[in-house]
């Protein structure tokens, strides 16, 4: 039996479209333990949402198709479970905060009712208790007038308010694993701080584990126990926050960390970004998927996929530069090896 709460092994997911097969997830591995927060960061379109939605089997098949791999939850294989069997897990075991709050709330139903229905389905409560909890949760995510909000329809709420409704709904079921896909991207930083605090509090109180997808490296710094960096359907680097921020090994990670705006360069109106575009997932390249954009690309990178190298038990990276035969590359790091990251992002005060 697996010693992890959740273990995803060698997961492959594709979409069959008119134009061909989109290989969205191509061999993803990760584990999640009880009470831990794993942050998944990566290029837009690299397969983060598809990966977590596959865990809950939320991608309709077709067009999506799980081509291989294994998803063990408390040692039990989920990969072959039917949609119906998965119902038993949704809400109570896994709960999801979607990236697109507008399309995931039912537009014809008042938001409060949507929350209390979810509670009734997954927790042993009667209608009155469920309603009380729903209003409580709406207040906890910082919505003004929770009673009034309970009776509103989604379209009358702002983007951030709808997102908070979604968060209230997901957290009210106290799941074992919370899958949070960009939960706070639509929120201002004070509300974000409040929600992140709430997620931490629930995690501490109930031992909920969290998979957090976010583009915001500040949020990653605040929340993550471990970090996985994804690129073109694969995890290219993973490690503890200190590994990723202070000793990153993958050129994509370097590019990502280097793209954050540097406040001190305000007058110089150019931000660094990674040149080029990610590979076409209809026909992913045979070597390293990052090769075409990588300033350090070597001959081997074009032909052979880089294996996963272990820097430590926690820190792995899939890049040929780590191979002992490769030439030493000095990463574009600052003096103090903190990759000009230090003092960025949040030092506004």
């Amino acid at each position, binding site marked *: 039996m697996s010693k992890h709460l959740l273990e995803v092994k060698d997961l492959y997911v594709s*979409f069959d*479209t008119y*134009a061909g097969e*989109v290989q969205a997830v191509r061999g993803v591995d990760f584990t999640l333990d009880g009470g831990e927060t794993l942050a998944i960061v990566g*290029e*837009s*379109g690299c397969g983060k*949402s598809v990966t977590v939605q596959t865990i809950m089997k939320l991608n309709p098949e077709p067009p999506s198709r799980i081509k291989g791999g294994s998803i063990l939850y408390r040692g039990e294989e989920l990969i072959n479970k039917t949609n119906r069997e998965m119902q038993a897990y949704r809400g109570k075991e896994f709960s999801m905060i979607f990236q*697109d709050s*507008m*399309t995931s709330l039912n537009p014809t139903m008042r938001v409060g009712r949507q929350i209390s229905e979810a509670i009734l389905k997954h927790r042993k409560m009667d209608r009155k208790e469920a309603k009380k909890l729903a209003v409580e949760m709406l207040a906890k995510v*910082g*919505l*003004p*007038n929770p009673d*009034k909000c309970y009776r*509103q329809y989604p379209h*009358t*709420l*702002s*983007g*951030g308010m709808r997102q908070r409704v979604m968060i209230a709904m997901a957290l009210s079921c106290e799941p074992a694993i919370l899958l949070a896909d*960009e939960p706070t*991207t639509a*929120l*201002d*930083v*004070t*509300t974000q*701080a*409040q929600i992140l*605090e709430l997620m931490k509090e629930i995690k501490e109180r109930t031992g909920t584990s969290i998979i957090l997808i976010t*583009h*915001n490296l*500040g949020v990653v*710094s*605040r929340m*993550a126990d471990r970090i996985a960096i994804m690129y073109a359907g694969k995890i290219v680097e993973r490690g503890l*926050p*200190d590994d990723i*921020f202070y000793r990153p090994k993958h050129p994509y990670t370097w590019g*990502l960390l280097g*793209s954050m*705006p540097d*406040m001190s360069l*305000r007058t110089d*109106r*150019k*931000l660094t*970004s990674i040149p080029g*575009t990610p590979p*076409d997932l209809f026909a992913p390249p045979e070597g390293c998927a990052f090769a075409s954009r990588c300033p350090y690309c070597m001959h081997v990178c074009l032909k052979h996929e880089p294996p996963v190298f272990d820097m430590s038990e926690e820190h792995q990276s899939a890049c040929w530069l780590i191979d002992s035969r490769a030439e030493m590359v000095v990463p574009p790091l600052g003096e103090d090896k903190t990759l000009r*990251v*230090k003092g*960025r*992002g*949040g*030092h*506004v*005060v």
Partner: protein
Amino acid sequence: MLSEQILEVKNLKKYFDVGPRQVLKAVDDISFSIKRGSTLGLVGESGCGKTTVGRTLVSLYEADGGEIIFDGKDIMSANKKELKQLTRRMQMIYQDPYASLNPFFTVGEIISEGLIIHKIGANKKERMEIVYELLELVGLHREHANRFPHEFSGGQRQRVGIARSLAVEPEFIVCDEAISALDVSIQAQIVNLLVDFQDKMGLTYLFIAHDLSMVRYISDRTAVMYLGKLVELGDGDEVYSHPVHPYTQGLLSAVPIADPRRERSHKVQLLEGEVQSPINPKPGCRFFKRCPKATGICSEVTPELIDVGSGHMAACHNID
């Protein structure tokens, strides 16, 4: 003659009726102007009315009061023909790329729609060339033109939205959370792109976002809103380096730091206290129940925006 301000907003109001005798004052008497070729950053609590400001500016909502003067013309008194002209010149990139792209059209059709409406490009072939160019400009592939919105990731859809608004060569763009769904590298790419267009074609932006480091980077001037009101406004770095409104101060302290070691010791000042409702708001400062500096007057008198030095404005009774 070209006036220096491309957009002047005076006492703008947008109210929603949300129930019997219940008026939600989403935008309540705000005034600002934007210089031609510059960027005004707009930040504030979610639900404070930023999108409503943007939508009212580009005539998606009808204002309930005030004036919007675009390039010398009063939008609210424009006739149908003038309005069509104006709407080409003013575009909006939407916050919600899911809801704003028609699921039954391919990306190519979505982007060329504006081209057809405004008669840009002689024929389909020419229009498709423009579409391909735009797709590549925003970092997508030309092959994407034949795909449908649901086949894209969140960030990819957002870039389709950006390509669509750039298609009609506008002069003023409301970027409503246009980049927050993207990874930082593409954010940087798009922001560079927006800045390039600005330098080359003199575009003007209203840049609405929650990521303060990005807003700080791109904006020439920054406005902070709280529950329908402007509470602070300043040039360049003023608002970030010398925030004077207690809400702005709280906002800045909450920004997460992209550095785990510093973040571990970062004490966030959570804004405690009840969030006031924008429905039938009472006089007084709308922030007073959560404000650490509130005094008696705050619950009674609405503070006006006053100049605290060199054009830096703030609306608070207790500025030190």
